Every structure is written in C-alpha cells, then in structure tokens.
C-alpha cells in the first residue's frame, strides 16, 4: 500500500533554551499545519530521542511526555533510540506501521552540556569494551575509517575540505541551519584544528539542539515514499570486511531502489549522512552514485553542488545545518519535502522529482534509506 508524506516541520537547529518536549511541539505544530490535518486524526506517533542521562533533562518514558504535551491520549506512541540513525529508524517504523496517519518526531538537546561530556555521551553508541575503553569516540572512529579510505583510494584532506565547503555554502542559505548566514571559507576549513587525524574540526558535523517532524499517511499527497529501507550491521567498524564501504548502506540502498523501481542514477537530489566529510564521500559510492573509490570526483567536479547534476545536502547537511542526533533523519525528510514543494528559496534545486535521504547510526552500523517521489506535478 502506498505511503505519503503529508507535511513536515522543523525547529531551527542551534542552541535552544526550550525543553525537548517544547521543541517537539514546535516541530509537530508546523508539520500538522503543513499537512493540513487535525492532530485528532493522527493514529500513532513515533519518537526518536537518545534518552541521554547527561542532557540536563533527566527524562525517560518520553512517549508519555509527548502524550502530555500534545494531549494525545490512548494512541500508540513508541520511541526509537538508534543513535544518529534514530530519525531514519523512526521514519522506517512509521512507514511500515500500517497506521493511517503517523506523526514522526525526532528531537535532541546537546548544547547545554560541555563538549567533553557530549563526546563521552555520544561515544556510548560505540562498542563499550573494544571501542569506548580505547578512546574511540566518534571522530576517532571515523578518522580511522577515513584514513583507510584515503590510503586505499588516494583521497586527500583537500577532497574532504571540498565537501565541508559545499555544505557550509548551502547552510549559509538555510535559515534553519546552525551556520545560516555564517561564511566559512576553504582556508578556514583547511586551517581548522585537527580533532582526530586526518579529520579537522570542519570535517566534523556540529552538535545542536533541534527537532523535526513529519506526517506519514496512507492518504494520497503530492509526495510518495517509494522506498523505505533499514539495515543493521555489526557495531564496531573494525569488524567490517572492508571498513571503507558500509554494507548496511549498500543493502538499504539496494532494497530501497528495488522498492522504488529505480536505479541510483534516477535520484535527482539527496540528503546524505555527512556526520564527517569522509562519510559523505563514502556514501556517494555505497549509494551507487559513482563507482567505489571515485567519490571525490563528484565533489571535485561540482556534481553535488546545489546547481550540479546531483545536489547533495542542499540543507547544509549534518555538517553545517547541524546534527541533533535523533532528529537528523527526520530533518532530512523536511528538506526533501521543502525542495519538492519548491519552498527552499535561495537554495532551491531545479529537478526535485526523486529525492533520497540517507541516515546512519554509528560508523556504518545502522543505515536507513528513504526515497521520496514528487507526484504532485
């Protein structure tokens, strides 16, 4: 049975004094208005939230908090905690739930705690004994992956810098992005502090607060979800046969393309999981946009720029729009829908017939791929 996106909503990504439930309310309100639907007609809600113990909110059983703030009692409300892939996983749950109208909300609060505590908290999504105790926080984990990739395919830090530059240029134009209106130059990127070699500060996404929402419905709308796939792989990246290629992404993409009856080349634009610039390059390849090891050609030739043949991360991506962990996957859908409905203003992409969202948890351990088709005309 076909499933559609009726409406989307999103808070600005950045530093918020609002609580998680208030952010959810703001995003949900926008989505409800956008969908032109009454909240009374929502049959189920899926929440994505990390349930951090250090975010200052100290709140578990968040579905019931959502029940309180939305005053939606006695309907199924479930929560997904899948680290950075939480938003995509929540969306996947909603699409496959069988309910008529499902509200999906992703939310995270990360800015009110010191960076070192956030680093530690996010590291909990890596393997406890093999990775956490060996200091393998996410930048370090992705640095080792990036290094393997660079050694194998002769990619350089300059290639990575171009990814950062493109996404910052896009975020500059996105009013809801953390880096909206903030100019970042190639020089700034290349000279930024080394976080975990070879990854510099501007190779890493930025942690922000924020929420995003989407209404998934069986009632026809202008945007159909023609592919929805989730694959989970082993947690540590070092366990992969080939660390430079993420099997979960490849499998999720293959299945989503099959559901959609399309091939990678049919995708017109995409929101990819650029938690690190190296991940965007690898995703080009794992999603089939280009053959393995040649991802850098897409960035060098400007193919993935807003005005390129295959615009990627027109929103600014996790890199510069911001990465509120559990909200990220839903925010990608927000961007796809706004692009398809021609509401993206200065960063509007021309051809928005088919859009793809790619969301990853861990260093490739869980991946979701959603393909949206603009059937509205």
């Amino acid at each position, binding site marked *: 049975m076909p499933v559609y996106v009726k409406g989307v909503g999103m808070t600005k990504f950045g530093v918020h004094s609002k609580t998680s439930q208030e952010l959810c309310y703001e995003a949900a309100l926008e989505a409800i208005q956008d969908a032109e639907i009454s909240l009374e007609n929502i049959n189920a809600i899926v929440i994505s939230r990390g349930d951090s113990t250090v975010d200052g909110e100290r709140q578990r059983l968040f579905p019931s908090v959502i029940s309180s703030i939305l005053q939606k009692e006695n309907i199924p409300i479930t929560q997904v905690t899948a680290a950075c892939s939480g938003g995509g996983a929540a969306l996947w749950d909603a699409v496959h739930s069988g309910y008529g109208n499902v509200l999906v909300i992703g939310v995270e609060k990360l800015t009110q705690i010191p960076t*070192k505590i956030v680093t530690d908290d996010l590291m909990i999504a890596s393997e406890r004994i093999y990775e956490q105790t*060996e*200091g*393998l*926080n996410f*930048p370090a984990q992705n640095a*080792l992956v990036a290094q393997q990739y660079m050694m194998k395919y002769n990619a350089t830090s300059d290639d990575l810098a171009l990814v950062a530059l493109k996404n910052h240029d896009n975020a500059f134009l996105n009013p809801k992005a953390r880096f909206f209106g903030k100019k970042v130059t190639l020089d700034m990127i290349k000279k930024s502090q*080394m976080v975990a070699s070879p*990854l510099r500060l501007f190779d890493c996404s930025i942690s922000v607060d924020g929420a995003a929402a989407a209404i998934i419905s069986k009632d026809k709308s202008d945007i159909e979800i023609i592919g929805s796939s989730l694959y989970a792989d082993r947690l540590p990246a070092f366990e992969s046969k080939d660390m430079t290629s993420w099997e979960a992404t490849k499998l999720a993409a293959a299945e989503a393309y099959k559901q959609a009856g399309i091939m990678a080349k049919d995708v017109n634009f995409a929101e990819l999981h650029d938690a690190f610039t190296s991940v965007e390059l690898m995703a080009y390849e794992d999603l089939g946009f280009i053959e393995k090891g040649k991802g850098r050609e897409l960035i060098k030739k400007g193919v993935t720029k807003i005005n390129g043949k295959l615009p990627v991360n027109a929103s600014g991506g996790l890199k510069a729009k911001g990465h509120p962990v559990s909200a990220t996957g839903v925010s990608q859908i927000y961007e796809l829908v706004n692009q398809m409905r021609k509401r993206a203003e200065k960063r509007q992409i021309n051809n928005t017939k088919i859009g793809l969202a790619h969301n990853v948890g861990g260093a490739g351990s869980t991946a979701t791929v959603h393909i949206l088709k603009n059937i509205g005309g």
Partner: protein
Amino acid sequence: MIIRWVSEDGKRKWIYPVERDIYTKGRIIKQVSTKAKVIGITKVNIPSPLHPIVPYYVMLLEDEYGNRMPKKTMREHKIGGTYELKAAATDGAVIITKIKYDIEEYLKESIKLVHAYELKPADKILIKPSIIEAAYAYQAVNTNPKVIDALINYLREKGIEDIAVGEQAMLGNDVTDAANKAGILDVCKKHDVPFIDLSKAEYAEKTADGFSFRIAKDAIDRKVINVPAMKTNSQIGISGAMENMIRVTDERTQKRMFEEDIEKTLPKLIKELPKFLTVGDATIGLHAQGPTSMGEPAFLNMLFVSKDPAALDSVFVEAGLFKMPQYLKEAAAIGLGNTDTKSIEIIGDDLEAIKQHLKCPEKDATSHPHIKLIDGKADPYIFNSALKMTAKLVGLLGYEMRLAIGLHFSEEDLAGKNRLVAYGKDAIKRTRELGAKTAAEIPEDIDDMEKIALLKSVLESEEKSRITIADKLKSKFAGFGSKIKTRF
C-alpha cells in the same frame, strides 16, 4: 591480544565470548593472537571524562587472521609496524591489562608478562582475595569471583593441585557469609578448593622494627597470590595490593597496627611477608566511598599485576588521579618497592592512557549526611561498626554532629567541632586526653542497639550538648529489647 570466537566450520566469528554456534549448534574455537600489525592510527585531540589526557593515539591493529582491534596508546606508532607485548625485564614491573570480555585469557597473558615468575606443579598456593563484607560481586567490594575462577583454572593448567583460597572479613563481619554472597565459595566448591578462614588460622609471630606481627602460617608456608579488589579506601586512600594483606594477620595484630599508625605499620608488614605476586582485580573496581559498599562500581575492566605491591598501588593511585597515600610514602621511606611511577617499568597499556578521574573518597563521610567522621585511624572493627551504626540512622532527620573514632586525632582536628561523640575506647581515651567536650561517649563493647539509640539521641536534638540520664536509660532499654528479641 586479539581474541575471536570462531565457529567450528570457520564461517562465523564473534568478538564476544559465545559457547555454541547459534546457527549450527557446533563448537566454538578460540582464536588468540598476541602479535598484530598496525594498519591505522589517529591522533585524538578531544578529551572526554574517560579519556581526559590529550593528545592520545588510537591504533588500528590487525592480526595474522585478519582480526582487527583498536588500541589506545600515548606513543606514536608507524603504520606497517608490529605491535607485540614483551615480558617485563624487572621485578618491579607493573602489568596493566585492559580486558576484552575474556578475563581468563587476559589474566593468563598478564601473568606470563611478569618478569621471572615461575609456577611449578609442586607449588602450594594460597589465593588471597578481598572478601570484606557480604556483598554481591557487582558491588565491587570483594574480589570478582570470575577472577578467582580464572586464576584457579590457570593454576590447574600449570599442573598445580594444592590450591587454597584464604581470607578473613573486615573485623566485625563474618567471612563465610561474605564469601558466600560474593560468589567465591561457589568458585571454591566448583574447583574443590578449600576455603580457609584466616581469622581461625594458625599464626606465626614475626617481629620487624620492634613491631610484632602474628601472621597466618598459610601465608608464610604457601606461595601467595594476592588478588585484591582494587578500590578506594576512605581511611588510607586506596585498598590495593598492600592493604589486602593486612588480613593475613590475626585480629589483635590488625588492631595494634591501626593503634600504632596503620600508614607506618602496613609497609613494615609487607616487608616482613614472603614475596608474593599480586593480581589486582579492577575488572569492576570501586571508587568514591570505598572500601565498603558505600562506594560505587567504577567499571574499569582492568587487571594490574606485579611482584611489587608498592609499585602496583602507586600505579593504581596515579591511574585514578588520586593523591599519593601516606602509607606509600612510608613504604618509600623504608625502601619497600618502588613508588616512583616514572621509574616503574610498565608493560601492557600505557599508564597515561588509562588515567581517568575516579572519585576520591571523603575521609569524613558516613551514610548519614549529618554525621561526619573524625577518623583517628580507627581499626577496621571500629570503622566498620561506626559506618554500620550511621547507616541504621539514614532517613532520620537530624542536626550535624561528629563521630570521633580511633586514637590518632589532634586538638586541631576537633577545633570548632560541636556535638562530638566519641566511639570506642581509643576515641574516648583520646578525647579525654585532649579535654574535648563530648555529647556522648559510646563504648565499643555495648549492644549495637544501645549504641544506635545513644547516637540517635544526639542526632535528633539540636540543643543537646551532653546526653542525659534519660537518654542513657532509653538506650539501655533499646539494647535490652534487642537482646530479648534475639533470644526469643
């Protein structure tokens, strides 16, 4: 060391210890390698609570089977180089091992890395764990039974038959109860290894520097493997390789060691004991208000192994970023082992790489927020029973008061401290010597209920500067009531 659990048909590999192949129900074969190639390395510049010191490096290692593992280090390694641990070259070396799920394999490897340590089938072994109070293994107060189990397996592998586990609990506690709850009695039963209550052992007298120790003969006649639970100790800083050996002496010796000044007598005892190996169990580890269950599990997943107990304790102190305890300074003063971590040979994980801020114990804390200790190095019985008394009063509203214990406190320690209660003969003697005004004196040899009733009467009344006859009578009744209850 890289370990994988591999299915019999070689089709599947696990990073976790599994007993059967869930697909074929077939056997699992362990793949262990101690040598690996460095295939990647990153220099990390962002700190986190678990890894506060930056920069550090994380290597990506790959063994001959293609199995990989990340490894933190403070040294730069070259991609393409070999990573392999070499056995220690000195007797004073400390082996630091981070365990990856398989305690037994890592314990064996750690002992192999000790310099010139030989185990022969004819050896008579005494395993000396920490079993101080009745607490479950996860509370990390006592030695992890899995470590004892692994050690016995290793000794059996070496052909050693004569193995005993020996310990006595913290004075005032029952060791059989404690060993039972800790899961160590079950391990002994599993291996048919006797458990010796060292409080009932035969003792031999040894005198060192004018102090006479009565030491369990088992700790002298047998080759001792000391397996302390590595933890904080609010009295002396940490409980580790050295503190754990106090309990090979009889009760009287222990009390005298504290009376005389435990920080000085402990190094003397260790010097007097035959040489022993220590396997410091930090598989969980305890921090904050150790050494009892007032502390918190630290989830360290490590072993510290050494023939030099002073070196081992010094390394643990630095790893937890604690202050150097006085007893280690005293050890250095009498030439016991090496306490200078800069000159200690470290094998395994880098000391800098494992450093993290563990919670220091507060010297004056009790379970009750309004009762603070003034600890004059009281013996374990007084210390333990003082903590137990205050724990019984948790939940009662009260007014700040001080509970003085032991002999070694000064006038300055008591200055400005009102509502003072002296507990135990030593503290009573000392407060009288100093002419300190006490609200109550509680002897150690009265009934526990009577002690608690006396303490409660001071705690609950803001004005009370001295307990009254009525309070004393009430406490006597409480004690009498508890005796009647016990009898009937």
